[in-house]
């Protein structure tokens, strides 16, 4: 998956959770939970949806690395399985 495909999937999932946000406007370096106001249930839903869409299995201990939108995009890029499931 290339960067723009990853972004499309990630933003697509968040758009379902927080539909009123313009994801081009948010600060991609800031803590996403504050930027788009999500709680731990929303975040878990994101992790599950990401797993279903591209087969990436993010262990809980790595949640700490997924702070900003850019963090998430980079993490997925580095850890996504070669082929989407």
């Amino acid at each position, binding site marked *: 998956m290339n960067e723009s495909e990853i972004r499309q999937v990630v933003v697509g999932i968040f758009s379902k959770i927080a539909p009123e946000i313009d994801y081009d406007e948010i600060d991609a370096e800031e803590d996403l939970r504050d930027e788009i106001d999500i709680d731990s249930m929303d975040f878990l839903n994101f992790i599950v949806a990401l797993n279903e869409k591209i087969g990436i299995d993010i*262990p809980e201990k790595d949640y700490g690395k997924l702070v900003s939108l850019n963090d998430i995009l980079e993490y997925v890029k580095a850890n996504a399985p070669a082929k989407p499931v």
Partner: protein
Amino acid sequence: MVEFKMPSLGADMKAGTLIEWRVGEGDYVEKGDVIAEVETEKGAIEIEVFEEGQVTKLISKPGESLPVGTVMAVIGSGVDSEAEAISKRDRETVVAADGVKTEHKGNGYKTAETEDIPKRRVRSSPLARRLAEEYGIDISEVQGSGPNQAVQKADVERVYRERMKEREEAKKEADKDREEEKYAEKAAPAGQQVDEKKDSMRHAIAAAMSRSNREIPHYYLQKQINFERAQQWLIEENKRRSVQDRLLQPVLLVKAVAQALTDVPALNGFWINDRYQPGESIHIGFAISLRTGGLVIPAIHDADLKSIDEIMQSMKDLSDRARTGKLRSSELTDATITITNLGDRGVDLVHGVIYPPQLALVGFGRVEERPWAENGMLGIKPILTTTLAADHRATDGRQGAQFLEKLNQYLQEVELL
């Protein structure tokens, strides 16, 4: 035969708008079936029925805004007799004693439910007949009190007075509604549906919380709980689980609260009509904030009997449906206690406001590393500050303290939950 009425989904609800019927006339319904979808300040709610029988008449039309207590449909029980209908209706009136006004038009004249029955021949005095015509009352609808049930002048007058009174009440109700609409219009720019909805939810929360503050003498207790073991257990457990089956921390809190309530049931239930009414089950209301503003508090039913995984499932499901607006009526009305978890939002502790007529609210702040002295040693531990707001009319500090201590004990051995 029973009348299906617009239910009250909380002390703060005045009316709801019928979105659609989920059943048709002639359908059979059972207790717990969803009969209609109704739009309220809390979003779209699926309304369940508490009787079984055949739907004989759908009275309300989709799009109608209906005050709480309005008869929306008639449900006949297969073996219908007048006596049964009356006893059932009486029972209904008792059940609705939590402040919801239900009208019981037992005598005088028949209600809409018997409209289809052909008019009976009526014995009446000429004076009664003339009076009825003058008042615009169908004389066949008047129950006579004279010999052979003949309708007399006094009977017609009685029905007339009742109708006038009803009309007046309906007018007052309508005036009040208009007043409130005016208020809502002032507070929010017109024409924006989301704003209006948000505003009416704000209004509903305001009403419930004002009542709480006015009526309930709260007392507050707080306890710091060493969350190390619970956190460790959760981490180990989630390592073994697939992404789909992972647990969230609030699940442990819900379960531990439910268990602690089995030890201290005095905090589980309601304060109604100046007395304590114990909750028959433990239904934990879990506050969920909505992105559009405001919050809803759906109940996790029988949380003491559910496993950790079942509670996780319930929470996921409720949280999804709270946000898409598909909660069920029972979920919004029968919580016996409320939990609010603001740890996600970074606060240290919560001083809660009880949701009437409940007896208590348990608040959780965030788990944070703090210096912690134990067995003469100082260490750093993840600490969860837990608070209890309880109704002092129903319980005293001693029970509140017992509850928090039990809660602490359960959270020290989460593997047993």
